[in-house]
Every structure is written in structure tokens, then in C-alpha cells.
């Protein structure tokens, strides 16, 4: 009851603060540009002549993944910066006082905020991602092998990052929590790329960097799973084994164990946040 009221309040805040409209404009611009780019791709001539259908699918896969990365970045930054003000900001401004003096459990308040932010972030990536897939299909006729899985993994990636941002915002200040969350997101992605290069070069030590970072913060692992669902199955073969470390193609789908770990990770971080928030003096 409390959680639902606060989830609604969080969504209403996103609407009223014009976050939704800013995102909508940004997304429409991105969709239009990508549509234009893909339409140019069809008529593209290389020195070797017109691309084969395999090459075209490879390039479409790459570009689709690139744009999806853009969306996941927008959603990640958006939710991280919305999550920050939600706990730290409301405590700092005094807004939390009147709210928490009501007959509510702090964990219900947290759950409500988390649900609202999760609905917002996940809703955004799913809708924007779906629109992008439809644009690509309309322009070049490419349809990814597992679009629903890919979009779900993108949504999960957003939820992972916003859970982390909520934890940070319950212990550090508003601005710091957003910056640290986005910084960690970027660092994990870079570590994933480094790990991929390590695998391509056969260097186990470097490869381990990517593996460890994927476990510490599952955003990059989920992102790679999403890419795998969006890209053409033949794309990797087309690229050749020498290009294994390429950051916008993933070589394997996600394992069930990794997904289970992600669920555990979110639950543990959420529990830590609830503990820290319920003990906090406001």
C-alpha cells in the first residue's frame, strides 16, 4: 500500500519534473538519426563493390548494438541521477521528515521508490529499444534473433544500476551517489572490454579483469547478454576469430547461473540499502 503510493509518487515526479519529456525528445532525435544512418547503409558501396547480405547483417548488428548501448547509457544515467535525489536529497532537504513520520516502514518507502524508478528506467529502455528495432527492420529489414530477451536484459541492467545508485544515495550525498554510480557503470564496461581483449590475446590475467568486474557489478555482463540477443548469429563468424575482443559484439549468451547471481546481487544490495536507510537518523 505504502510502497504502491510511493511508486506512483516517484513516477509522477519523473513526469512532472519533465524528465520524461527530455528523454522523449532525445530518443526521437536518436531514432531519426539512426534511421537515416541505416538507410544510407543500404546504398553503401565499398571499393570491393556492394556489400553482401551477410556483411550488411553484420554491420546492422554492430550499429544496432551501438545504438542500444546509447539507450542503456541514457537510461543508466537518467535513473542514477533520479535515484540520488530520492533518498539523500529528500533527507537533506527535509522532505523526508513529514513523510517518514507517517505510519510507514522505511523499507516500504524504499520499496516504493525502487519500484517507481525500476518501472521508469526499465519502461524507458524497453520502449526506446523496441522503437529502434522497428526502425532498423523498416529501413534495412534486419530483425534480431531474440529481441524480447535482449530488451529484458537491458531493463535488468538499468535495474541493477539504479539499485546501486539507491544504496549509494543512502550513505553518501546526492551528487556523489549519481556520479559514483555512473562512474562504476563506465568502469565495469571498460573492464569488460579489457577482459575481452585479454581473451582475444589469450592473456588470462587480463581476461580475469573482465570476469571479476562482471561479478562485482553485473551491468556489463547483462549488457553483453543483451548484445548477443540483438546481433546476427553469423556476425561473429563474419568478423573472424581475430576480432573476438570487439566491444559491440558478444561471443556467448548469458548463462542461467549468471542471471541467478544478478538476482542475488540485486537482493543483497537492496537489503543493505534497506538496513542502512532504516538505521539512518533523518
Amino acid at each position, binding site marked *: *500500500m*505504502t510502497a504502491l*503510493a510511493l511508486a506512483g*509518487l516517484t513516477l*509522477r*515526479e519523473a513526469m*512532472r*519534473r519533465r524528465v520524461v519529456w527530455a528523454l522523449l525528445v532525445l530518443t526521437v532525435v536518436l531514432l531519426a538519426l539512426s534511421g537515416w544512418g541505416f538507410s544510407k547503409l543500404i546504398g553503401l558501396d565499398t571499393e570491393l563493390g556492394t556489400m553482401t547480405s551477410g556483411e550488411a547483417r553484420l554491420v546492422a548488428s554492430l550499429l544496432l548494438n551501438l545504438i542500444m548501448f546509447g539507450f542503456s547509457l541514457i537510461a543508466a544515467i537518467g535513473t542514477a541521477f533520479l535515484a540520488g535525489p530520492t533518498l539523500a536529497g529528500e533527507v537533506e*532537504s*527535509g*522532505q523526508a*521528515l*513529514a*513523510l*517518514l*513520520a*507517517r*505510519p*510507514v*516502514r522505511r523499507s516500504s518507502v524504499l520499496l516504493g521508490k525502487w519500484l517507481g524508478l525500476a518501472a521508469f528506467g526499465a519502461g524507458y529502455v524497453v520502449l526506446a529499444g523496441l522503437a529502434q528495432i522497428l526502425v532498423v527492420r523498416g529501413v534495412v529489414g534486419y530483425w534480431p534473433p531474440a529481441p524480447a530477451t535482449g530488451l529484458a536484459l537491458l531493463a535488468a541492467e538499468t535495474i541493477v544500476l539504479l539499485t546501486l545508485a539507491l544504496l549509494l544515495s543512502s550513505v553518501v550525498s546526492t551528487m556523489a551517489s549519481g556520479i559514483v554510480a555512473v562512474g562504476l557503470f563506465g568502469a565495469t564496461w571498460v573492464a569488460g572490454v579489457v577482459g575481452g581483449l585479454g581473451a582475444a590475446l589469450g592473456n588470462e590475467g587480463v581476461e580475469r579483469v573482465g570476469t571479476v568486474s562482471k561479478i562485482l557489478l553485473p551491468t556489463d555482463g547483462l549488457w553483453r547478454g543483451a548484445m548477443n540477443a540483438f546481433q546476427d548469429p553469423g556476425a561473429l563468424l563474419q568478423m573472424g576469430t581475430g576480432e573476438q575482443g570487439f566491444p559491440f559484439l558478444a561471443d556467448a549468451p548469458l548463462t542461467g547461473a549468471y542471471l541467478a547471481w544478478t538476482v542475488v546481487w540485486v537482493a543483497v544490495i537492496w537489503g543493505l540499502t534497506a538496513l542502512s536507510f532504516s*538505521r539512518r*537518523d*533523518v
Partner: protein
Amino acid sequence: MTAPAITGEQLLASLPPSPAVWCSGLRKRYGRRTAVDDVSFTVGRGEVLGLLGPNGAGKTSVIKMLLGLVRPDAGEVLLLGRRATDPRSRSAVGYLPELFRYQPWLTAAEVLALHVRLARADVPAAEQREVLGLVGLADRAGDRVGGFSKGMQQRLGLGVALVARPELVVLDEPTSALDPIGRVDVRDLVLTLKSRGVAVLLNSHLIGEVERVCDRVVILDQGRVAAQGTLAELLGQREVRLRLAGVDGRAEARLRAAGALSRSGDWFTVQLAADDDGVTVPDLVRDLAGLGVRVHAVEPARISLEERLLAVLRHEEVPA
């Protein structure tokens, strides 16, 4: 025939209601500084209790511990008969924080509706509008809070504290941003609540207001209860001021016999005992006249709460 057994519920109903607030041994440290040290007091149902003390005395910390916003290091709190660790203890509590901020993207009416929902109270929209009218925001119900002045936000905070039909209202500096008319409005509101049997815990720097509306006062100093009692108990001492001419040694001795004496020009002030039966002053005037003293004026006076507060805080015990 056996008498019908008394159910547990009937037994509970026959007991006197638990106090609105009961707290015992509250203690809170922030780092090395002890903000609140062994504070205990009670607010009865329908009673108005004033919390007084200088800045940093721990008044807001005590209020926050009562409402579960700050975790006490030691001590216990019961609100309306329930432990304060149980969120349900706050079901019928309204609170206006010292730092009042409400969601700037909501309208005044939406803020009240949100609080009614969180309090799980069944308050129809018309009654919510009535509350907005009561705090002087009837014509701003549909405006976003972001555009409100400080005073209007504090009025909205009062509305939030009152909207869910509270049995206990906690007001932390409720007039800090209000103009003189607003202050009078708050005083009237507190008196209305009192007449309806709603308990009020009032923290205010405006001693005059506290003196006018409160039944009892708790004075905090450096985190401890420095004094507490009803106004009659705290302000028990009365005095009488007399303007006299022709006072000789015998007349002065007669004045001293009535109580502690102080003199400023031809004005004499005599402190009267708290349990004065009402004949001390007439008898004194009669005797002074008999001694040939010319009595120009006799003015009864009462020690104000402000004087009493200052005496307590400066550790000067006013002689009883």
C-alpha cells in the same frame, strides 16, 4: 445464571486511555556531544505541552526521537499507547517539522491527499479542502508547492499535520516563518485542537504564545529536563507592587513581614507566597495606612513564563 464474562476488549475499554506521549530516559549522542540526556515526560490526552529551551537544548532531537525519525541511544517511547518502534504508533499523529519542505512538483491539495493515503485515513476530499481553508490556503489548493513562499509552505505543513484526523499533533517551531497574523492563527488552531481533545506538543521560541495556550511546560537545557510542571506550578510566585509615600522603618518592617522586598524609588515590590490565601495584600494595605503611609497605587503582578525560563536557564532560583 452466570454474569456475562467481561471480554478483554471491554476490559481494555474500561481502562483510562494511555497518554498521548510517554517517554522515559531518552538519550542521544552525536559523536562526542550529548544532545539529549535522560529526558522523560508525558503528554496527557487532550493536553497542550510546551517544550521550551535555548537553541541546541535538544528540543528537536527529542521530537524526532518521539516520532521514530532519530534512533535514541537509550530510552523508551510510547505514542498513543504503542511503542514508537511500531510504525502504527504514528497512525493518529500529525507532525509539522522545523524544516518544512513538501514535494515542489505537487499541488497543495495533492500533498494533503498523499499524507491522507500514507496515514491510511479515510478523509473525504471535501474535508481535506476544509483543512486547507483552515490554514489559509483555500484559494491555492491547485497551485504547485514549488511556487509557495516560506510562510505558505509552513501553513501547508500545518495542514499536513492536521489533515488525517490526528489525536496527537507535534508542532516544531510552527510560527517561525509566519507573520503576526499567522501567529495568531496558529494560536487559535492550537486552542481549537485543545477544545476537541487533541493533544499538542508545541516547541516554540515565542514564550508568550506558549504561556497562552499550554497546560504544562517542559524546559530543556543542555539536553536535560531543567524544570517541568503546570503553568501554575512553574509560575506559582506572585508579587504585588505598591507606590508609597512616607515609609518609615516600621512600615518597611511591615512590608518585609509580607514577603521578600525590593525597592525602586517610591515603588516597593513584595514577593508573595505561592499558597497565599488572598488576605496578605488587603491586610498589608490596611496596616500601612494605619502606620501613616500614603498608598498611591497597589498593582498585583505575576512572574511571567519568560522570567521563570530565564531564571531556570541561568540557574538563579527565584525565591519562593
